[in-house]
């Protein structure tokens, strides 16, 4: 009879949207959806006819209007069915880019449901329609409106689960003949999935409202629900968990960060072993899939690198004194405090939201044990973290090679360099510390010089600055070493040569950095952009220092060096005079520069008296003998 025809139409419409529409040609992308729309409209009319006849038969429509129909009453069912068709029409219009019309249909659905109480027959629709309205309004930048719909959906779900909780009717079942009704299990699955979407949309709404913490909690829940309900693709889930770890890491929540990463690594393993190479003659899609797996694997590795790096850097911040050296008192204090905290840590761990099913739980836990989540406090502990990080560097670089992935590759190198840099902080032996910095130079220098300055201007600036700083660090270490060894004796030639080399290398890269700021005609900009203001002034300041540190026994050369030094200090001072707002960015440097501008000429005097070239001296600094 007629009902059967309606059911068939509905199944056809569903089929058109879910299956046929994928085959629609690019030039007619909504063909199947438009067809489905016609079917839905027909269903709607048929339902309306039913309603008319039922009212003639004197249904109980007037009864209970004030409290709303109960969901399983004939009127309630009728409303739900009509509402469902309105819902599908609304989604159909939105999918075909007719948003306003879509909104109207969805609101009709809401109005129909308003007349009903929430019950297993209609709760699913209650939630679905609000999810859709949430998306629609968020797309129009009306986040608060979206939030209202979604939060209502959330509370409807929670209320329902508390008060009833039986597996509710799925919307598709309104138009199914008896024999095709869903199992309880399937009903639950679909209902829970709708709610997972609500949580996910809320996560986005909270993000848009700037409530990051809340948003992150909802993302975490979404991931958890996906895993519990077994509705996920392993690689995708893993990458999402790894991304979430980045949020926790920046928040300093290393235990959660590590948990996400371990889960990511374990779950990604479910995606199947990544073969070393795709078998020959495989289709393009399979090739692409293989490529995807490799890339995502490498990306998870990069998240691990960041975990190790941040953990080390945060530990360093905790342990360093005001000149950036290891504060041993603080170290002792923290070590003592740690033994107390370990028990609390266990408790805390249980309270955090855990991922994993029974079969993956142990694997995740054993991966977590491989790296600590508390701050490393001495070299041995730091080295353990470093090695884990370095291992992931190797993994990540296998995919992100320089040729093809320049930016990514360099970012990994920068992280590797930063790992060494932080490890060096924990190293007590100066010789070895120096060698760690040398490794940084070795990995960055060739790349920096090979890159095209036009396309990689910003990266090169970073690299040049890092090189300059690394060389500078090495000069400091070399000097400290030399002083320690020879004490009062004068430095030997070899050491001087090396020291001077490091000094000039550092100055050279600072200068390269500064040159990269110049206009094409070679003129240095009069006004520095905000993002390079401080680096540029600092570079000048350091070049000033480096020149004055060069060791030479020729007075003229020394004079030359001092004059260059003075020039750079002067630049800092003069720039800040012309641009007073810059002074706040470089307070300490400015102070010192001012002093140096006053002092350098006199420091030079010592040399000049010896050689009696006072005249030269004066002309050097633009003074005239009166």
């Amino acid at each position: 009879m007629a009902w059967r025809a309606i059911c068939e139409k509905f199944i056809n419409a569903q089929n058109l949207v879910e299956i046929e529409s994928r085959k629609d040609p690019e030039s007619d992308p909504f063909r199947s959806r438009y067809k489905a729309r016609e079917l839905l409209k027909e269903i709607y009319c048929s339902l309306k006819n039913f309603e008319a006849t039922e009212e003639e038969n004197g249904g109980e429509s007037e009864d209970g209007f004030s409290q709303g129909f109960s969901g399983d009453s004939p009127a309630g069912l009728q409303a739900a069915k009509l509402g469902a068709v309105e819902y599908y029409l609304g989604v159909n219009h939105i999918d075909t880019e007719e948003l306003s019309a879509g909104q109207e249909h969805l609101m009709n659905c809401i109005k129909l449901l308003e007349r009903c109480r929430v019950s297993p027959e209609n709760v699913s629709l209650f939630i679905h329609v609000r999810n859709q309205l949430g998306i629609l309004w968020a797309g129009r930048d009306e986040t608060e409106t979206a939030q209202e719909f979604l939060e209502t959906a959330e509370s409807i779900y929670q209320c329902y689960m508390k008060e009833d909780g039986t597996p509710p009717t799925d919307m598709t079942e309104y138009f199914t003949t008896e024999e095709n009704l869903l199992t309880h299990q399937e009903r639950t699955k679909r209902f829970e999935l709708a709610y997972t979407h609500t949580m996910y949309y809320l996560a986005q709404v909270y993000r848009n409202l700037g409530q990051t913490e809340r948003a992150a909690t909802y993302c975490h829940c979404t991931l958890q629900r996906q895993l519990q309900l077994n509705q996920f693709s392993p690689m995708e889930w893993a990458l999402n968990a790894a991304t979430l770890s980045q949020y926790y890491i920046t928040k300093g929540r290393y235990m959660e960060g590590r948990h996400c990463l371990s889960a990511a690594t374990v779950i990604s393993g479910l995606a199947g072993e990544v073969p070393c190479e795709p078998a020959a003659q495989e289709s393009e899609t399979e090739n692409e899939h293989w490529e995807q797996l490799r890339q995502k694997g490498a990306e998870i590795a990069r998240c691990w690198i960041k975990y190790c790096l941040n953990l080390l850097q945060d530990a360093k911040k905790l342990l360093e004194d005001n000149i950036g050296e290891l504060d041993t008192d603080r170290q002792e204090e923290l070590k003592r405090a740690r033994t107390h905290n370990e028990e609390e840590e266990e408790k805390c761990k249980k309270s955090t939201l855990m991922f994993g099913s029974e079969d993956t739980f142990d694997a995740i836990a054993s991966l977590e044990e491989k790296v600590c989540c508390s701050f490393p406090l001495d070299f041995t502990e730091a080295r353990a973290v470093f090695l884990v990080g370095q291992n992931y560097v190797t993994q990540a670089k296998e995919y992100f090679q320089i040729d093809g992935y320049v930016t990514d590759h360099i970012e990994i190198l920068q992280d590797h360099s930063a790992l060494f840099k932080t490890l060096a902080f924990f190293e007590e032996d100066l010789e070895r510390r120096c060698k760690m910095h040398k490794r940084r130079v070795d990995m960055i220098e060739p790349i920096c010089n090979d890159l095209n300055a036009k396309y990689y201007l910003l990266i090169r600036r970073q690299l040049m600055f890092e090189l300059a700083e690394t060389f500078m660090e090495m000069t400091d270490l070399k000097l400290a070493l030399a002083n320690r060894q020879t004490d009062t004796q004068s430095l030997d030639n070899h050491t001087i040569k090396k020291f001077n080399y490091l000094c000039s290398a550092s100055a050279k890269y600072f200068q390269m950095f500064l040159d990269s700021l110049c206009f094409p005609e070679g003129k240095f900009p009069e006004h520095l952009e905000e993002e390079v203001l401080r680096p540029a002034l600092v570079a000048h300041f350091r070049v000033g220092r480096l020149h004055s540190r060069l060791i030479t026994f020729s007075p003229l050369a020394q004079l030359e060096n001092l004059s260059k030094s003075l020039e750079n200090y002067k630049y800092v001072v003069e720039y800040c005079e012309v641009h007073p707002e810059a002074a706040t960015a470089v307070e300490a440097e400015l102070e010192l520069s001012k002093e140096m501008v006053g002092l350098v000429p006199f420091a030079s005097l010592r040399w000049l008296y010896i050689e009696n070239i006072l005249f030269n001296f004066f002309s050097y600094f633009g003074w005239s003998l009166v």
Partner: protein
Amino acid sequence: MAGASVKVAVRVRPFNSRETGRNAKCVIQMQGNTTCISNPKQTKDGAKNFTFDYSYWSHTTAEDPAFASQTQVYKDIGEEMLLHAFEGYNVCIFAYGQTGAGKSYTMMGKQEPGQEGIIPQLCEDLFQRTGENRDPDLTYSVEVSYMEIYCERVRDLLNPMSQGTLRVREHPILGPYVEDLSKLAVTGFPDIRDLMDVGNKARTVAATNMNETSSRSHAVFTIVFTQKRRDQMTSLDTEKVSKISLVDLAGSERADSSGAKGTRLKEGANINKSLTTLGKVISALAEMQSNKKRKSDFIPYRDSVLTWLLKENLGGNSRTAMIAALSPADINYEETLSTLRYADRAKQIRCHAVINEDPNAKLIRELKAEVERLRNLLFSQGLQELLGSAGIYTFYTGIHAPVSAGDVPADPNHLTEEGEEGEEAVATETISKEEAAERLLETEKIIAELNETWEEKLRKTESIRLEREALLAEMGVSIKEDGGTLGVFSPKGTPHLVNLNEDPLMSECLLYYIKEGFTRVGQQDVDIKLSGHFIKEIHCVFVSETNEQGEGETLTSINTTGSGGGKAL
């Protein structure tokens, strides 16, 4: 290097037939630079004002004194950007807005006089200006490419032979580029207009209820404009290269939910529908968090292909203008409001620019050196092995992987055992022969492209044009509007070898055509003569034969010692 913010304009179109049929009301008003939108549902207090660099009233016809024509839009925005290009800046103009709001009309326009959009007008103007040049030391060249990004896949709109999707890659010297995207040399406006035409025909367009011709993809029309100046004193050439990117974005409402993601600029409040995009949501959280603190975390989601390709335009070396297209109809009120809000935000985006000077000559030298090094390495290993059975051997290169798996010290304790600084073990890298060969080939491909003379570029353009025309003719499409004859339909491209000169400064390269039958390559008594240490008397033989259908040619090379420096096209 003073920073320049993004220029933002909005433009409202007339009602379309569908809207007129439904008696739509106009919700947009404009006054000077200000655009006002009123809410059709709350007439009392629903009006909102926005101010932009330009507000274009194109809702009525030319009779209306307030009407903004295609010419005016070009004069204000296109011309300014073109002048920046002459100064050497990279420039970018992109159109944003809801499907059917008039983006394509503003960018591309129609063929009729006075209806051309920014792209054709800018091209015409470009050639007009270069044509006026009387300075013998100043020469110009123009190359264009046209691609579309549909569901994150890049397609070449100018080359009918390239079927699949193109890879985007990043090269240490070339920067980000689309592999195998055809860059065609053009000498005058008619050339470029024909190419545009062809590209527009190849674009993915669809008919929907909302719009009869809705473009579903992002289209990027790129002009690489080179100004070469010869210095008489030193007889040195300096080059100024600017890239002009003209982008017609896919409809803004499609952002995220269906794969045609907008640019990064589209940071709006859209909700991703599908759980598959969860990661992108989380990554936004991590980013928001890290911006405040530090940049030491890693977000494992790349932006869309478009953002990636335009990053130099949006991030640094460029002058950018945006035109937001608006629908006037009350039924689109919400979407139009959202477009206006987005445009309003875009005003605050700042980019600062660096003038680009002389990249090409240096590029060639660097790449040559790289190739030379790789080639020497390969030769020293015995090239024939390369093409033989699979196997692994070790060779080192300074560029590709200075530190790789092999030499990372597993334990920093071993650091002390290494030599003095500066004398550290050179990084060795283990790569397979196939990989080495592939790398060499790739680099050579790039070199060949860079090395191409202008004449060759033109020749190549011509041959692609012919291929395209042949293909179009087959499909029953004629490019010329007047339906005039197109000349020879199918001169088959003759296969040839491109020779790379040993002298890095010689920018020319020779072409060797390979005839049907046998073509022998070697030192003496051969069809193609090569000289050099590693060239054997009979170096290799190419066999070219026509297949049975007589349609195509198969090119087989029989190597005696392996491939030389050439590359078969």
